[in-house]
């Protein structure tokens, strides 16, 4: 069996708010195998955002180890973490976080500008175009975010996350700003990408969204409370990417 893509051991994060010490994470152990689809659930204040920030290499743990794709990333510097984020993590955010007044194409190309690979302009274009195709947005390359619907914007964001071919897709409440029908569409894209072998980590507080994953991890009070396999995952029949 292939080594796990995420291996977290006894992860602790402590914040100091003045005199008060807040233990946002208190000894978390988590393994995610390559090709898995994990939903991390929990109410606000449970520590799931802190966990997401550490998994996404935006933040460092106070104690414990985090091995991502075979490399220990728990004590890296700011710039080293930026390099890891660029190469191994594809972020999808609740509020899409696209650059305004910037075309879909340019938004998707953005991570490639910061990458270590010396790509030519043509190669960047090619990769961005492929990624946009992949999420069913062929023909929308020149549109600005303001000219796209919420669902389409989130697809551009997914294309941007995919373009560097990262080890994990990290989606933070990706359907939080979308209506239920569009939410289902977006979840369909994640399932499809997962079927193709992408590891997906989804952070959500909605249980019906979490039901699209293969495994749900419940976080509460900075600890993992429950870790269950979904036997009958909700499959979105309408596969958007390939059908359009």
């Amino acid at each position, binding site marked *: 069996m292939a080594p796990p893509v995420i291996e977290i051991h006894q992860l602790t994060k402590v914040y100091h708010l003045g005199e008060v010490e807040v233990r946002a994470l208190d000894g978390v152990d988590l393994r995610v195998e390559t090709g898995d689809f994990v939903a991390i659930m929990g109410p606000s204040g449970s520590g799931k955002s802190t966990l997401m920030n550490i998994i996404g290499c935006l933040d460092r743990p106070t104690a414990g180890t985090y091995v991502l794709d075979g490399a220990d990333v728990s004590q890296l510097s700011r710039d080293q973490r930026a*390099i890891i984020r660029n190469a191994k993590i594809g*972020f999808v955010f609740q509020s899409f976080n696209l650059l305004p007044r910037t075309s879909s194409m340019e938004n998707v190309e953005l991570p490639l500008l910061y990458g270590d690979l010396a790509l030519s302009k043509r190669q960047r274009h090619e990769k961005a175009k492929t990624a946009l195709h992949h999420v069913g947005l062929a023909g929308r390359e020149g549109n600005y975010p303001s000219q796209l619907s919420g669902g389409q914007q989130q697809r551009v964001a997914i294309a941007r996350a995919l373009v560097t071919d990262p080890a994990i897709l990290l989606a933070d409440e990706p359907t939080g700003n979308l209506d239920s029908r569009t939410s289902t569409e977006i979840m369909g894209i994640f399932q499809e990408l997962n079927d193709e072998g992408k590891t997906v980590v989804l952070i959500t507080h909605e249980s019906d969204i979490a039901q699209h994953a293969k495994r749900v991890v419940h976080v509460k009070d900075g600890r993992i409370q429950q870790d269950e396999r979904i036997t009958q995952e909700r499959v979105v029949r309408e596969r958007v990417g390939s059908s359009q």
Partner: protein
Amino acid sequence: MRTAFIRMGNITVVGLKSIARNKMRSLLTALGVVIGVACVIVSVAIGAGVASSVSEMINSLGSNFIMIMPGASTQSGARMFTGSSTLTEEDAEAIKREATAVAYVSPQLRTTGQIVAGELNWSTQIQGVGIDWPNIRAWNVKDGAFFSEGDIRAGAKVAVLGATVADSLFPNGDSVGSIIRVKNVPFKVLGVLEKKGGSMMGSDQDDMIVAPYTTVQKRLMGQQRFGMIIASAASAEQVQEAQDQIDALLRQRHRIPPGGDADFMMRSQEEMAQASAQQAELMGNLLLGIAIVSLFVGGIGIMNIMLVSVTERTREIGIRMAIGARGKHVLLQFLFEAVTLSVLGGLIGVLLGIGVARAFARFMKWPIVISPTAIVVAFVVAASVGIFFGFYPARKASRLDPIDALRYE
């Protein structure tokens, strides 16, 4: 090496795109630098133009030139020619006879009047001078001849025309030998002077005629004393000696005791050149001060807007950091934006400055000299302003925490 270059190129592309996306704001931000640089270019162009035309005018006076003016008039020479001059014909003759370091001497008086030739007329300046005048002013006759010692003694009604007057009154070039009427007195044209060109502030040196001073005194002005005496020293080394001799001689003739206030004053060409050089230097320093202040203000404008821009774009910075932008990427992006803004401002400023300077030259007839050095310096300074004032906002941007930046609304 190639990789590094390409990555650097990517960052500049990022910076350029941000500027293109905010055209109006970019323009307004650069406005301070635009105005600063334009000010520098215009004022340097005018300053250099004035300085060059002053020195041109002084050089055009002739070499080793000495000017002796009536002394009551220490403030302004021009007002003295009427009435109360203390200088006489005998003074001029005595200088010529006794001052050994002096090569040429000529009285000089001026009046203005209407000149008529056939059906054409022209209002101009009439200078009454001696026969040494062409040597003192290094100004030769082009056609015909200058008047003679005999013409002076006889008070002959003869004249030599400046090039402008000749062109205006005799468009066909047949002036020599013709008769002109100066204030209704007929004069015979003996010759035409070489063209000397414009002088300071656009006045035309060729717009005048010269005639024997005796004739101008008797026929045109009716006064015996004259405005000033001009002379030239035998050589450049003898200018000071000549001035000393003239000073001693005139003090003796005017019975002024040593140390007493002289009733005349003297200026050499060198002294005039020095005075105008000092003036030009003062002007230059003043303009440099203005330039520094305006570019400093422009720089603060850039810093201010870049700080606003960093705050406004906190979320963008967060997005860029989340998808892998390192500190140096963000730093370079904002620094590059600041420098591009200031260089763009510099470029527009240079063009605007040249345009305004040309407009001054055209509509106000001011002499201007557009200096390539000033353009290069203004440009380099503009770029440095961008780097200097852009660094702090850029560093602030590069040190943002991606988590906070992403959460920023």
